[in-house]
């Protein structure tokens, strides 16, 4: 068990080595997809390895000549990595219209990536709004274009059957990650938040088949793991919409007597929340998944549902005591939604605090103070 967990930590901490070694060994192309909604299954069906692009651990250096310091951590860190030849194993990079900061990356990569990958793609995945037919029709056209580009990049035709097979492989991995969360939910204190993040992050970097195999080995062992003492404060983490958060921060939350029983983060439950239907037309199935309204995604133009209501459901499902919003500094979708979420949780009487997560963390002391106050507030109410 410890060996598999160590492997996941190793992959998550150093994706550069992991992915480049995989490429060398397998002699296949690797395509980096920007979080959060590019369907990796299409890349997989074309015989390439899709990896979800990530925020590195190092401070941003030359990247700041291209992306201002008031942009979010992942856009700055990713740009920095690409300029410092740290992503030279990527044969392709794919972006879409998630947020303004991401939109500019396509141009920055075209002009500055070292080396420039063979393929840089950009897709106009639309907002979901009221899910009118025009949006869906446009989305399907975009997915078809994406499919054609992947076929051209690797010279392999993507058939309905091969795409359905990839969807099945991805669905299976999602299912096993959901099992992991179920175990965490039902077995207090068995799995640390940092471990969960490393596991999910590894799924974004490894071939799904390999990750699923490792998880099949790991899960039974985790079930047997001795649980920590009960009686801790149960919290839900939300936010961190497209990137990992520092492991030290997750440790700090737990060190202060809180237990993360579930989350609502991208490198977390959001990544595996939705399967695509394996019956029928696979492109249609991927479009249907994009159009889903749960979990509420603040980047897609959703106004029929409130993100806060989704969180209330997660809190109730887990009998949690409170919610911690991990707001990535300079993340507009989260910034804009934050007051609505805060209001909704307050209306429901759910204790809530917000931590701004910087890319370059200089000290966790202010965060500690804030979290201590949060735990006191909850204890006072319990």
């Amino acid at each position, binding site marked *: 068990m410890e060996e598999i967990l160590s492997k996941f930590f190793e992959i998550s901490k150093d994706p550069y080595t992991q992915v480049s070694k995989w490429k060398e060994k397998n002699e296949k192309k690797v395509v980096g997809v920007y979080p959060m909604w590019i369907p990796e299954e299409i890349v997989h069906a074309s015989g390439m390895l899709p990896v979800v692009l990530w925020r590195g651990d190092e401070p941003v250096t030359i990247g700041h000549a291209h992306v201002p310091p008031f942009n979010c951590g992942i856009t700055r860190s990713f740009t920095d990595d690409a300029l410092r030849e740290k992503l030279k194993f990527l044969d392709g990079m794919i972006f879409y219209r998630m947020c303004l900061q991401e939109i500019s990356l396509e141009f920055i990569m075209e002009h500055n990536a070292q080396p420039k990958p063979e393929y840089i793609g950009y897709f106009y995945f639309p907002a979901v709004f009221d899910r009118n037919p025009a949006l869906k029709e446009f989305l399907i056209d975009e997915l078809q274009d994406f499919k054609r580009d992947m076929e051209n990049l690797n010279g392999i035709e993507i058939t309905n059957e091969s795409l359905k097979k990839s969807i099945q492989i991805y669905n299976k991995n999602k299912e096993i990650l959901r099992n992991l969360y179920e175990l965490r939910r039902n077995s207090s204190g068995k799995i640390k938040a940092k471990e969960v993040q490393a596991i999910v992050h590894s799924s974004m970097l490894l071939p799904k088949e390999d990750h699923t195999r490792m998880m099949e080995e790991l899960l039974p062992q985790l079930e047997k793991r001795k649980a920590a003492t009960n009686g801790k404060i149960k919290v839900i983490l939300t936010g961190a919409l497209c990137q990992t958060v520092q492991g030290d921060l997750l440790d700090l939350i737990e060190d202060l007597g809180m237990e993360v029983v579930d989350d609502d983060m991208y490198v977390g439950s959001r990544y595996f929340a939705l399967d695509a239907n394996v019956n029928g037309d696979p492109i249609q199935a991927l479009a249907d998944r994009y159009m889903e309204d749960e979990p509420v995604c603040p980047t897609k133009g959703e106004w029929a549902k409130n993100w806060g209501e989704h969180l209330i459901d997660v809190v109730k499902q887990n009998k949690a005591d409170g919610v911690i919003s991990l707001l990535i500094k300079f993340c507009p979708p989260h910034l804009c939604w934050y007051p609505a979420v805060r*209001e909704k949780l307050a209306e429901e009487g759910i204790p809530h605090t917000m931590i701004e997560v910087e890319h370059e963390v200089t000290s966790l002391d202010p965060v500690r103070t804030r979290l201590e106050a949060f735990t006191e507030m909850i204890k006072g109410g319990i």
Partner: protein
Amino acid sequence: MAKEYRQNRLETTRNMGPLVDKHWADLRAAKEKGQKVAWSAGPAFLLPYAMGMKCHFMAGYAAYCGGRKAADQVIEAAESGGDLIDTCSYHKLHTGMFYAVKEGIPIREDVILPIPDLMISARLCPEQSHYGESLAQRFNVRVAGIDFPIPRKKEDTPKIEKFVVKQHKEVLIPLLEEICGKPFDYDEMRRILKVEKEACLIRNECWEFMKRKPATWTLWDYGVSIAPIFYMMGNPAGIEYYKKLKAELEERASKNIPAILPDGERFRIMWDGWLPWAFLGIFIRKLIPNGVIPICGRYPWEFFPHPEMIDPDADDIIENWVHQWYGGQNIMWHDFPGGALELIEELIEDYSIDGIIFFTSKTCRAWLAHPDLMHIAERKFGIPGVLIDADMVDSRMVSEAQIDSRLQAFIERMDAMKRR
């Protein structure tokens, strides 16, 4: 003794204050008169206008509120309601307004907006759909969304244009018909565009005076004059305003009277980014004593209708309207950095530009890849640039010390290049 440059303000622009005041006062009074009110993020406000609704326009309101020095007050109201300092300040002007009205927080009377019956979110930038989300979720406002993708490549334009037309016809028009209880008024839309075309044709003639050396007016003068051809679209007063402006510019040109005294500008610059509505005075007071005038910019040049493309008698007026954004000059393409470079090159040539200020907002990332555009423009066109990071309306984001030191270096570079 160093030459003393000073501003030579146009008489015509003094007429703008009463015109915009009346526009916003009419909007404030609309509800009391039983009129339906919409708010619009993005350019779709023309459609509610055609239905006889009163409609605000996001950036126009920001310009007005910023110009009236009331933005800080509204932003403070937004933050008292939970918004954070890094959130788009235009967004906060709207959540702040709503929160202030709802909670009874005192706001200056002349910038208050009526609570809308409909919010139209035209998603040119993802942020513009966030306005819709906030108003729908926090204040229960009905929202209509139109996705307005910015083309990454020119060849992508036709499919995007078709998509945007479809949304206008299948989403926005039926909703407006439902809210107003009557069929969409295509004739009124044609009338508005006819007036708009006439005003814009005169405006384009006025732009020609900026190409002149010395220039007879500046980008700041144009910034003050934008309202009639944008959010006051369809108001015949706009035509009269531009006729007066043109006459004044012609007179100046005939007498060789420049935009700055005593004898015109030393450096002509392009301004790339939003106009700093609340700080126009601060910037112009720093630029003019150095003989520097802002002459043109991607913002006003790209964002506003090209009159030659307006055809009020077009068979399909909706298609013609959307085509103004994606066809011909392809305003939307100029938003993407690749298209931006094309327009920057054109403007440098047409307006004899000596340098470019890239004005980057700390709360709005809509001006994509500014640092790269600056480096490329320097390399490709030999034009020095400077990045100023501040905000359009939030005074906490504006550091005069930063502006001073960067402008000084920028002016020295333009000077050195001119001496070569």
